[in-house]
């Protein structure tokens, strides 16, 4: 019995040490990115390509998901809103819900799955096949070329993808409302935006930059330091999604706490 308890304590202790070590290494990796992010030389051409690859190639998925979320949210809300006689507040409700939380969080989680795993697998594969070593021996800094460009692209593209998701989500909501009564698109959007305050828009937009940072850094970290072998590539891709999804909720919580202080939302 005592031996079993000791074994369990040992395992918990070892897992905890591993977790703390991982947090430390991820923090050091983030620090390295921040130090390299604004210093020369810049890999401008690669950054533009990564913005295209990350932004454009995720657009359809984000837009489709946003539209469906708009449809579903409106359908789910309608009966309750009708009971309270508040159907006319539907654009206000959906607009605020999308801009503050649903748009950023759903988009970030989709991007963690698509972009984070893609970056993890790509860099992991490059590590396994010694392509990263090949860059290093040719006198190129692979961290700048591979990591800095990808993380910057995530930081820059995520807010744009969130804006697209928000807009299309509202469009989806309008689509449902237009089938139930006479409402114009302009009026619907006008109602939605006039209900929003700066306290809804600014914190929600600022946090999307941090969401991009989380997705980019975690994906790059897991891929850049993936273990050798094909299994390492799979683990890198999978763990990039799991870790970044968890961190996204944590960052979201912190962002809401901070926004609450400044805007009393």
């Amino acid at each position: 019995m005592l031996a079993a308890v000791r074994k369990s304590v040992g395992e918990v202790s070892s897992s905890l040490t591993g977790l703390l070590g991982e947090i430390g290494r991820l923090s050091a990796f983030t620090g390295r990115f921040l130090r390299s992010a604004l210093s020369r030389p810049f890999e401008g051409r690669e950054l533009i390509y990564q913005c295209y690859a990350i932004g454009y190639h995720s657009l359809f998925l984000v837009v489709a998901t946003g539209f469906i979320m708009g449809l579903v949210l409106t359908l789910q809300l309608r009966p309750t809103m009708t009971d309270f006689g508040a159907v006319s507040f539907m654009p206000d409700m959906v607009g605020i819900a999308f801009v503050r939380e649903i748009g950023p969080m759903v988009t970030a989680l989709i991007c963690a799955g698509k972009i984070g795993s893609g970056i993890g697998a790509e860099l992991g594969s490059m590590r396994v096949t010694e392509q990263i070593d090949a860059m290093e021996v040719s006198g190129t800094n692979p961290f700048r070329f591979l990591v800095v460009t990808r993380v910057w692209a995530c930081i820059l593209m995520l807010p744009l993808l969130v804006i697209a998701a928000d807009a299309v989500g509202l469009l989806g909501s309008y689509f449902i409302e237009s089938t139930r009564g006479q409402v114009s698109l302009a009026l619907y959007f006008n109602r939605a935006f006039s209900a929003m305050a700066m306290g809804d828009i600014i914190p929600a937009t600022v946090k999307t930059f941090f969401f991009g940072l989380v997705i980019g850094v975690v994906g790059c970290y897991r891929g850049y330091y993936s273990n050798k072998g094909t299994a390492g590539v799979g683990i890198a891709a999978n763990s990039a999604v799991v870790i970044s999804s968890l961190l996204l909720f944590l960052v979201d919580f912190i962002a809401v706490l901070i926004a609450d202080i400044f805007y009393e939302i």
Partner: protein
Amino acid sequence: MTARQPQHGQEPLIEIRNLTKAFGDNQVLRGFNLQLFAGENVVILGKSGSGKSVLIKCLIRLMEPDGGDIQVLGKSILGLDQGALDRVRTEVGFLFQGSALYDSMTVRENLRFPLRRHPERAQGVGEEQLILASLRSVGLEHAIDLMPAELSGGMKRRVALARTLILKPRIILYDEPTTGLDPITANEIIQLMLKLQEELGTTALIITHDMDCARVISNRVIILYDGINYAEGTYADLSRSEDPKVRAFFKDVNQRHHASI
């Protein structure tokens, strides 16, 4: 074609002194020493897992050794900052065992990649001309727009060699250059290495366990055993050695030789 004769009596291009490296309890290198002179082709023979690849990666600091000193072109590379290390690395080409071509880029882009970061190497010639010349030297001018996935194993190795040579390094490190290739393609790669060395005057350190490669290409062979340079000499000298550990390397080759007689 046979190996070019080295220029002894000069300062060595690479000097390794008492190199040590361990992974946990596994002491891979226990005090390895080496001098590589201009024009030489030195082959390091060793069993799988004997630390050959670790040694060659320590040489350009893809791995950090635990102890000892490595001088490359008169500079102790272990103390160099990133900028100085990158400058030394442009003088030392590295051919990876798996070719390590960037698989998201075409052959042209693979060769352009190091040139874009070191444009001074293309001065007076032009980037495109240099890429074409480099590919022509390995006989693959026609593959310029292909992706690495469209190339055979031998072609990948040739493109990787062209990419290594495009910065005109003074020293080339070959990590198992013939591993995974059929005997005919392996021989083509060996002849290509000799041809390029003759034309460009490079010096080479070759890690291999391919005895045919060692026989054809080497001026000098070092046997890495138990983490040290256990035996050293020409291929012919070592093949006649009475030491059982050295004989073990040449056993199959000698048996084949006797069978053919």
